[in-house]
């Protein structure tokens, strides 16, 4: 029984050490020397994961549907970020 607990403890310790090592290890620094490597012209949104894909773009003339939380009857104003 004691042996089992020791093995379990050892396993947990190794796993924790592995997680810490993997999450903090230094990356090999690869310097970009050719400016064409920073070219972004070939980007395609289709290659993005689902949680980062652009939101749906409505077609021109398509009605704007929104859930309104509250409004002031007859009064319309637009709070701006800068004031």
């Amino acid at each position, binding site marked *: 029984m004691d042996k089992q607990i020791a093995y379990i403890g050892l396993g947990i310790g190794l796993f924790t050490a592995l997680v810490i090592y993997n*999450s*903090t*290890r*230094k*990356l090999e*620094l*690869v*310097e*970009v*020397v050719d400016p064409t*490597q*920073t070219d*972004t*012209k*070939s*980007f395609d*949104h289709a*290659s*993005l*994961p689902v*949680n*980062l*894909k*652009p*939101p*749906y*773009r*409505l077609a*021109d003339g*398509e009605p*704007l*549907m*929104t*859930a*309104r*939380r*509250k*409004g*002031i009857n007859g009064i*319309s*104003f*637009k*709070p*701006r*970020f*800068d*004031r």
Partner: protein
Amino acid sequence: MIYTIPTKYEEITLVVKVFTESPVKIRLKVIDAEQPNTTFTDRFKTIEGEAVFFVRMPVSAKNVLVYVYNENNGNLAKNLDKTFDVLSITKEPLEKKLDIIDFGNPYIKSFVNFSTRFCYNAGSLASGNYTSDDKMFVIKYMPIIEDNGTEQTTPARIDIENGIIEISKRQFVDYSIPNRMAILLHEFSHVYINDNIDDEVEADLNGLLIYLGLGYPRIEAFEVFAKTFINAPTEQNKVRYDKIRNFIENFETKNTYLYE
């Protein structure tokens, strides 16, 4: 100098360690290696000895380019600039405080998803009207925001009658992703979280609570408000800036609302 770092779309904190022999103004920029106009941070620090930049990235790209250079010399290759040295770049887990965000509120859950996807891609999106998957929110991504033919200085505003957010593409393209998120969460808060719909300070702090809880960098929040208030230096904006600074500085310890 520029380094390529594989970030695999993970949520991470990028830790960049820099060394200088004498005081040097070091510029650090992290941009998407593939998508144009997509910046994760753009900041500087004057360093003497060893210093560390922590770049919080709740969203990241497949690969990022990390620019580190002496602001006075410009961006030179490593062998051409001996005034500083990049000691290491590491990826560490991102610290978030999701428990302070009310994800039980369907508006917040939907808007965080929508705004994250919009902000990450805004640098390469065409003008037009964008909507969340559940059609709850709409952003009008306009070339500029104008009233009566005059371009407005604000990067964004929200119509309280219908919740539609208008964004100036001309201004948004140059903002970093965290800057964009701070702006959108502010506008969202006006209509969907605030008790007083037109209270700017309340919208600032409600938006910041979500922004900081998601793990976005503090410095980028300061920056976006400072940039905006420089163009509109009113007494109210001075008060707003002081409250924002207080809120961000106390966020780690208090997580509470400081507005009256």
